[in-house]
């Protein structure tokens, strides 16, 4: 049999879930309250993670690296593969060097230390007093184009994508969620849509959407500020050789650069404000790695809320240490699954685990193929 599935959320996670479902022959409708990629995904830093920022947990680092390599293979046209550098500027940074190299080795992420002169040749805007430089498999992307490529590929296999269709309620029969109440902002009407299973892929908004269904989604919205600059200062992704901290990364998008990021917690991702002091801190820290940052005009400042996991309830199915797929059956509500945590880079894997669970619940026997199938071009999204 094949099932009918509603996916809530038109970010990278929902889009990857819709694609995987459609590849496994299921009927899919994706609902997004705004435009595609208008939540967290569209304004991420656009870093194709090498995993090196997560070496504290080798399993997570290895997962990132693996997904990085899969994405390059299935959609080579979407990624700048100029690599990344971890650079040490101070003696304090140098103390982390050994731990970093060991961590990369333990995680299976192939890195290579290069000489200072080589690093400066590769990236002339780097601080010339750098003390160490390590090449890593980082990359960059335009988030919206990646999301649209997943959606184009889903649409080509029959998935229906409905932006500006907000879920405003759930339809329940006993303990089961059997459908959603949708507000279509384009045609200005409300309608009911039924499905065999509903996937809550709303990330940082997971808690808010969950509340409507009477389920608990342990997501903790954690915003981060990014400062975009008017010039492309680097080709590679420049990371500070240090445990993850504020302003420790600079990368380029087309002819601009972006310094990231900070992190704090909020309750409601619709109520996030940019703390002014974060901007100063990012510029100051960024300039320690790339001094030209100070002389470059700020283009814009933006903020994006990560969907961090707040600590899982007992019985939740933790499929990875970096993200969680939650079957709400455990709290007595049937027919709805939530997915939280994760990174843009690991969305394909998150989708695989979500759809594995959907298949298991619906009795559909179909293997995941998203790691092999090439993605369509983003502009094919507009073909149909």
């Amino acid at each position, binding site marked *: 049999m094949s099932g009918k599935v509603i996916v809530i959320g038109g970010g990278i996670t929902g889009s990857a879930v819709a694609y995987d479902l459609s590849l496994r022959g299921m009927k899919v409708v994706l609902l997004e309250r705004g435009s595609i990629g208008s939540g967290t995904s569209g304004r991420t830093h656009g870093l194709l993670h090498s995993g090196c920022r997560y070496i504290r947990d080798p399993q997570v680092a290895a997962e990132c690296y693996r997904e990085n390599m899969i994405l390059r293979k299935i959609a080579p046209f979407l990624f700048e*593969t100029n690599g990344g550098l971890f650079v040490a500027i101070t003696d304090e940074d140098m103390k982390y060097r050994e731990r970093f190299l060991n961590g990369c080795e333990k995680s299976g992420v192939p890195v290579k230390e290069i000489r200072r002169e080589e690093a400066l*040749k590769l990236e002339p805007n780097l601080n010339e007093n750098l003390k160490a430089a390590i090449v890593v498999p980082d990359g960059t992307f335009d*988030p919206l184009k990646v999301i649209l490529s997943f959606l184009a590929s889903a649409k080509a296999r029959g998935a229906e994508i409905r932006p500006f269709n907000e879920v405003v309620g759930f339809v329940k029969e006993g303990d089961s969620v059997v459908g959603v109440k949708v507000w279509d902002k*384009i*045609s200005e009407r409300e309608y009911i849509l039924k499905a065999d299973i509903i996937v809550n892929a709303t990330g940082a908004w997971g808690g808010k959407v969950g509340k409507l269904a009477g389920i608990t989604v342990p997501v903790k919205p954690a915003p981060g500020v990014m400062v975009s600059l008017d010039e492309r200062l680097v080709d590679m992704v420049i990371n500070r050789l240090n445990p993850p901290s504020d302003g420790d990364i600079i990368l380029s998008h087309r002819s601009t650069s972006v310094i990231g990021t900070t992190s704090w917690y909020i309750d409601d991702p619709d109520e996030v404000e940019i703390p002014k002091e974060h901007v100063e801190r990012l510029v100051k820290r960024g300039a320690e790695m790339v001094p030209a940052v100070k002389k470059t005009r700020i283009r814009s400042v933006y903020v994006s809320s990560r969907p961090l996991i707040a600590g899982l309830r007992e019985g939740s199915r933790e499929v990875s240490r970096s993200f969680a797929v939650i079957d709400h059956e455990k709290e007595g509500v049937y027919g709805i699954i939530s997915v939280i945590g994760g990174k843009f880079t690991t969305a394909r894997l998150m989708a695989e685990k979500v759809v594995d669970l959907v298949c298991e619940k619906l009795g559909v026997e179909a293997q995941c193929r998203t790691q092999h199938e090439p993605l369509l071009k983003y502009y094919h999204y507009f073909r149909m």
Partner: protein
Amino acid sequence: MRVVFRIYREKNGKKPYFQEYTVEVDPESSVLDVIEKIALREDPSLTFNHACHHGVCGACGMVINGVERLACITKVKDVIKSGVVTVEPLKGFKVISDLYVDLSEMFRKIDVINPVSLIKTKPLVVSDLPEYISTTRVKLDDCIECGICYSACPIANSSKGYLGPAALALAFKAEKVNNDEKRVKLANSIYGVWGCHVAFECSNLCPVGYDPGSIIMRFRKQLLVKTLFSLLGRR
């Protein structure tokens, strides 16, 4: 600062109108940030496209106080006139809902010229790097396909088959990377570079300085030379 946002509203083919929202804003905020706040706090029925919020994805092209701009990199203080910011959808595209327009016709034109999204910029100057590093430096092309050049062009939206500024500029760039006879044939026609009226509004308003107008002129020259050589060769 107290600002009146006059926003174009259109739903379901009903008669369009302007809705006014009086908001307290930091003049340094982007027009997009204000629109997003209005949609979140006052009027969730307001529909508009946005994603990256720093001018690299092309989602938020709009007409702001009469001029096509990316709302995300346009500060309120730079466009405000007598306390008012008027926001309208891009011109020439079908309005689906409010500021959200149908860009599919433009993307179809971009699709047919078979663009190259990743551009090789320069050779790697250091050898023996791991193989996951691209052997030439690559960069995602600067054109963000926002539709502003189509909105600004006096003919892109009235002359039905005309490929338009972005598609032609992308065709020229792609032709440098790989030769595609179908692409050349399309470009070398009245629907291509010969359809351009040389108004240069596309280049004037392009938010990333892509300068499609000049690229189309260069493309014309190149195609003329090519035609000339093929004629001479035939003789």
